Structures are given as structure tokens and as C-alpha cells.
């Protein structure tokens, strides 16, 4: 059995000593010297960019041409570090992807931290460094931020909120109301990787191989799609609630039915096995580096080709079509040729007893 080990932080040393505190104390959120030290020694070096370094109360940025996309999301994942990523990767990629799904080019992020008293500063530094790396990989800048500290026992180590601004070029109209009968549904890769990776480390479930989160920025793929494959009607990143939830929402918002072929869904064998073992359906399991595109049938092959050529889309596949029938509902043709409705779940998917 293989197992996942969180990063070794014992060798971390602060570039400039952070006074005498190896852990977060209430004063780090107090706005005084301790707060300033965190910014100076941890956040600024990790995020490094000219807008941040001015250290003003707000970042002052030039207005971009086109329409503005604005999004926010909060990250409370446990554990903070997991196979294939960390809360830092999710905090950057999640907001970057939300912007990209409107067809926007993500530009700037904010980062708000809620830290629990006693949280190791070495871990905070590791998170900040990974956020900086993720931002550079996605081509965005973290230009403003905030830190608050809550009493021991009132938080779960570290929560992060990021908000992001992106710009949408003129002529791009991608939104979840635009799916039309006849459109083709294309998925950028395997589903369920992130959720099962988290579940396997959180619950201490061991499989023969380590399941890895798919956390990834998708703005590069979206930029290529917009450039080379016009007529994209809808883009969605199927995070919480998985592919089933995203497609149900699109069906409802566009007033159309969606029919997918279960056999076409790319699913890693290990993820499928883990789901089978726990009685879970991968179509409801969260993803953090996948998108589903609903496109004009004339563009379907172009979209597929562009996705497959991009870094995070090698297993992209056409998975279904949009139909006039069963409006507002998602249905699937099952592997053995039956059909089923795939409804929205009430809450979280919970493992079945047997």
C-alpha cells in the first residue's frame, strides 16, 4: 500500500526571523508590527509583483479594455495539503477558472486569510509560496490581501478567500443560458479525480495507487478555445457537485435537455474503483481542473482538437448532446444501453452502506 505524506516543513526557515513566534498568535491579525512582518516576510516575497509592493490600502490598477468579469470563492479544504495539490492551488486555480468560464482572461486576484491561533507559520509560508507559484503558472497577479486571526478552536487552521478580476474581449458571449438543442457537450478530461483524492486522504482510505487531485488553471485552454474554435456557447468547471450538477444547472438555465453517453465519460480506473467501493457515482464527485464546453456542432471537432492539444485536456471527449426533449433535465444513456435521469443531489454525496 502506498500512502501520501504531507510536505516536510521542518527544514523551512524564514528568510528574516519572524520575531519569536513559530506559530500564528492573535497579534498577527492585529494590524500592528506582527501583521506587517507577515506581509513583509511571507506574502510579498511569495506573491511578488509591483502592484502589491506599493503596500497601499488598495491596489491601483489600469482599467482593462473590454468587459470585466469578477468572481470570488472561499476555500476551507481539509487536509490543507493533499496528493496533487493544496489549498493554495485551489485558491488560485478555483477563482482563475471561475473567471475563465465566462470567457475572461483572468488578471488580478485578492487573497484573504483567516488563520487559527497556533497555526504553524512554516505552513502559512508554504501555502503562500504555492499560491505565488500557482498565480505565476496561471499568469495572474495577487495584488491585494488581508489576514485575520481567530481564537484557537474557532477555525480549522487556515481558510482562504480569493476574489478575481478578468477581462472579456468584445464579441465573446459565453454563459450558462446559451445552450441550444443540437449543441455538443465536450468534457476536457477525467472526472472525479479531485474529490476521490481528498476523500482518500481525509478518510485514510488506501488504494493501490495514490489518487491525485486534478487542480489546474484552465485559462490557457479557454484562451486557445476562444482563439481557434468559435461558437462556444457555455463553459463550466464542474467543481462541487461534479459534472452532474454543472450539466443540471445548464439544462435548467438554458431551458434544454442534456443527454450524455455514460460510456464516453473519461474516468480513471482507480477513481472508478474507489467510487465503486464506496458506493459513489463519479459524476457527482468534484473536479478542480476540468471544464465542460457546450458548443455549436460545427465547432465540436475544433474544440475537441484544441482541448486535446492543451496541457490539461489530453483526455478530452465528446460526451453528449443538447436536446429539446426533457427540458431542464440531465439524462444519460447507460453503459448497457438503458437510460436514466441524473438528478441534482440534495446535499453532499454520502457513501452507501453496501
Amino acid at each position, binding site marked *: 500500500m502506498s500512502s501520501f505524506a504531507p510536505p516536510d516543513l521542518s527544514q523551512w526557515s524564514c528568510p528574516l526571523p519572524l520575531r519569536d513566534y513559530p506559530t500564528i498568535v492573535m497579534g498577527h491579525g492585529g494590524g500592528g508590527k506582527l501583521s506587517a512582518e507577515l506581509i513583509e516576510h511571507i506574502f510579498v516575497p511569495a506573491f511578488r509583483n509591483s502592484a502589491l509592493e506599493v503596500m497601499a490600502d488598495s491596489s491601483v490598477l489600469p482599467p482593462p479594455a473590454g468587459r470585466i468579469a469578477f468572481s470570488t470563492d472561499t476555500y476551507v479544504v481539509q487536509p490543507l495539503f493533499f496528493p496533487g495539490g493544496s489549498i493554495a492551488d485551489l485558491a488560485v486555480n478555483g477563482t482563475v477558472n471561475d473567471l475563465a468560464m465566462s470567457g475572461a482572461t483572468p488578471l488580478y486576484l485578492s487573497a484573504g486569510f483567516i488563520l487559527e491561533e497556533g497555526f504553524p507559520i512554516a505552513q502559512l509560508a508554504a501555502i503562500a509560496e504555492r499560491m505565488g507559484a500557482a498565480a505565476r503558472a496561471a499568469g495572474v497577479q495577487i495584488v491585494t490581501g488581508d489576514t485575520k486571526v481567530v481564537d484557537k478552536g474557532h477555525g480549522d487552521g487556515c481558510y482562504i478567500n480569493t476574489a478575481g478580476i478578468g477581462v472579456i474581449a468584445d464579441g465573446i458571449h459565453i454563459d450558462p443560458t446559451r445552450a441550444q438543442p443540437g449543441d455538443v457537450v465536450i468534457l476536457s478530461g477525467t472526472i472525479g479525480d479531485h474529490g476521490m483524492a481528498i476523500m482518500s486522504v481525509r478518510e485514510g482510505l488506501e488504494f493501490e495507487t495514490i489518487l491525485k487531485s486534478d487542480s489546474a488553471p484552465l485559462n490557457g485552454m479557454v484562451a486557445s478555445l476562444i482563439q481557434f474554435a468559435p461558437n462556444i456557447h457555455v463553459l463550466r468547471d464542474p467543481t462541487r457537485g461534479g459534472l452532474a450538477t454543472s450539466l443540471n444547472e445548464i439544462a435548467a438555465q438554458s431551458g434544454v435537455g442534456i443527454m450524455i453517453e455514460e460510456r464516453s465519460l473519461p474516468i480513471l480506473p482507480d477513481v472508478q474503483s474507489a467510487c465503486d467501493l464506496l458506493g459513489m457515482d463519479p459524476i457527482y464527485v468534484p473536479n478542480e481542473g476540468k471544464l465542460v464546453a457546450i458548443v455549436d456542432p460545427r465547432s465540436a471537432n475544433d474544440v475537441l482538437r484544441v482541448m486535446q492539444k492543451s496541457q490539461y485536456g489530453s483526455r478530452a471527449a465528446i460526451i453528449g448532446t443538447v436536446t429539446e426533449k426533457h427540458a431542464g433535465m440531465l439524462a444519460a444513456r447507460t453503459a448497457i*444501453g*438503458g437510460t436514466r435521469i441524473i438528478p441534482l443531489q440534495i446535499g453532499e454525496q454520502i457513501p452507501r452502506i453496501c
Partner: protein
Amino acid sequence: MKYLDEFRDGDLAKNIARDIRQTVTRKWSLMEVCGGQTHSIVRNGIDQLLDGAVEMIHGPGCPVCVTPLELIDKALAIASQPGVIFCSFGDMLRVPGSKVDLFRVKADGGDIRVVYSPLDALQIARQNPEREVVFFGIGFETTAPANAMAVHQAKLQGIRNFSMLVSHVLVPPAIEAILNSPKCRVQAFLAAGHVCSVMGYWQYYPLVERYRVPIVITGFEPLDLLEGIRRTVHLLEAGTPQVENAYERAVCFEGNQPAQKLLSEVFEVADRAWRGIGVIPKSGWRLSEPYRDFDAELRFDVAGITAEESPLCHSGEVLQGNLKPNECPSFGTACTPRKPLGATMVSSEGACAAYYNYGRFVALESIH
């Protein structure tokens, strides 16, 4: 994966379904006993492949669904007590008691943990010697060996802060109760493969002998189910009721004997109430005398709790195959997965939830 894909082959499935359709001379009513089978039938659209050739009646084999309201209330009472860590399989958390469910108790501060095995609960007890750790031991013969093992180890290792709220139920007495019902429409049974992997299938011969119904041991993958149905239909058409094993890769005649030995040591047969059905004599297990100290019902003094089920819920009729879920007046109106009246609407294995989720309001021809 190759191993599983073989049992999900669409072409083979169509061939078997065609065989079934061509074999039947009348519409037979088959009951799949296990909730896992119900789930698989609906999830894979097997009933549609059969195209009305066979009526599938969804049986009482969802452990979550048949756990009586009274026991849920006892679980809620125990889980609410300060100092208790209450461990359960995930899908018990949403089952409504008389007033609330375990999710609500958790939100109100109860320490409720989802575990995947009773042995995980035992480990939690080892790690928290100052806390009382209770495992909600429900299920059929399938989950029983692991539960028995947990209690057995607790006794062996002297883990005194561990106990189990037991509500084990047994398949053969349930089949017999259904057959004894004057309203019984079931003409053959698909027996639950995983129950039989523990218990074997020797128990079914007297039932077949007495009631003259075919019983075919059946697995859970689409092809397993179709093959089970195919064999059952052939037995019905030939008028030769007998026991057949269509799940040979997991089930043998005598079953898992070390498991049965442990079960007979840790548990003893008892009368059990089934939610929606009532008490079926000798249809369950409780902890045997040497293990009685680990019985949470006694340790927490909740034996006096009683409960009345909603008169609007007809889950008992559904579980016995007398009513289709969508024929219940409350289906989809007073009773939905969001606000379930009975447990059959809660568990994804429950017949009502399965109908609601997968078959709901759908004129199937409209999505072909």
C-alpha cells in the same frame, strides 16, 4: 477495471435482455431482495432493457430503509448525549427519526462520525478512552461479520468504552414473511448475492420446497442482474421452482464458514421490527449473552423509547411489493428525498428514492 467492464458490456446485456423477452409467455413478477440490486437496476436502466417483459418488484433489502423508526430515535438519543462519539455508515445520517435526523444532531454539537467499517469505530474507541464510542450496527447478513468482529475484538482487548446499537436483520425470514402475506404477488426471488457470499444458499432450499418459487442467487453488476433474471424466467416458464446460483464467482453453497461461526458466537436470533412492515419473528440478530455488555441499548438506557410512524407513509407496502413507489399518494408530494416521510425515500438504495431520482416523471420513450 477490465474485471468490472466485462460485467457492464452493452452488447451482451442486449443479448440477455432479448433472451428474456423472447422466453416469457406472460409477465412474471420478480422481486430483487437487495437494495444494492434495486440501485443497480434503476441506475443502469435494466428495467428499460426488459421493456415490460418482466415486472421487477423492489424488495425490503435496503438496511437503511428497514431500520425501525424507534431505533433511529434511540440512535438520536444516544448521539445527543455529551461525551459520546457516535459512529455510523454515511447513509444513516439523513434517515429521519420522529423529529430530527443525525445530521441535525451533529449540527447541534453531537460528535457524529461517518466511518467505513465498524473496526474504524473500534479504533476511535481505543484513541479516546475517556469517551463512550457507539457504532450503529445495522444491515443484513452482509455487514454483520464485520460488526461481529468489532464487538469480538472489543471484548478480547477489553475496550470497555465501545458499544454497538444493533439492528441486524435477516433475509430468509423476510422472504418467508412476504410469501406468507395474503397479498403476495411475487412469483420468484433474486436472492442477494452478497448476503449469500456470507451465508451460502443452503437456507433457501426449504423455502423453495414449501412455497414452490424459484430463488436465484444474483450479483449486482448489470450482467449479473440480467443473468439472474434470465435464469429465473427460464425456471418460471419451465415450472421448475428451484434454487440456482447465478453468482458463482462470489457465492458457494455453504458460504463463509469462519464468518458464520463468529456470527453465531456474537449474535443470537431475535424477533425484529422492520420499518413499515412490523415485527417479523426470528428475523434479526441481537448481541448474545456473553457480549450483552456491549449493547448500547442497555448501556444508555434507551430501551424504553418508542415511536409511531407517519400514517401517510406506505413504505411497508412498497417494501413488500404490494405498492409501486409512485402509486403511493404521498410520493413526490408530501414525501420527497428532500423531506422524506419514510426511509425508502432517504437511502439511494431505497425503492422510493430510486424511483424519484431515476424514473421520476419521465415518459421513458421521450428520452430514448
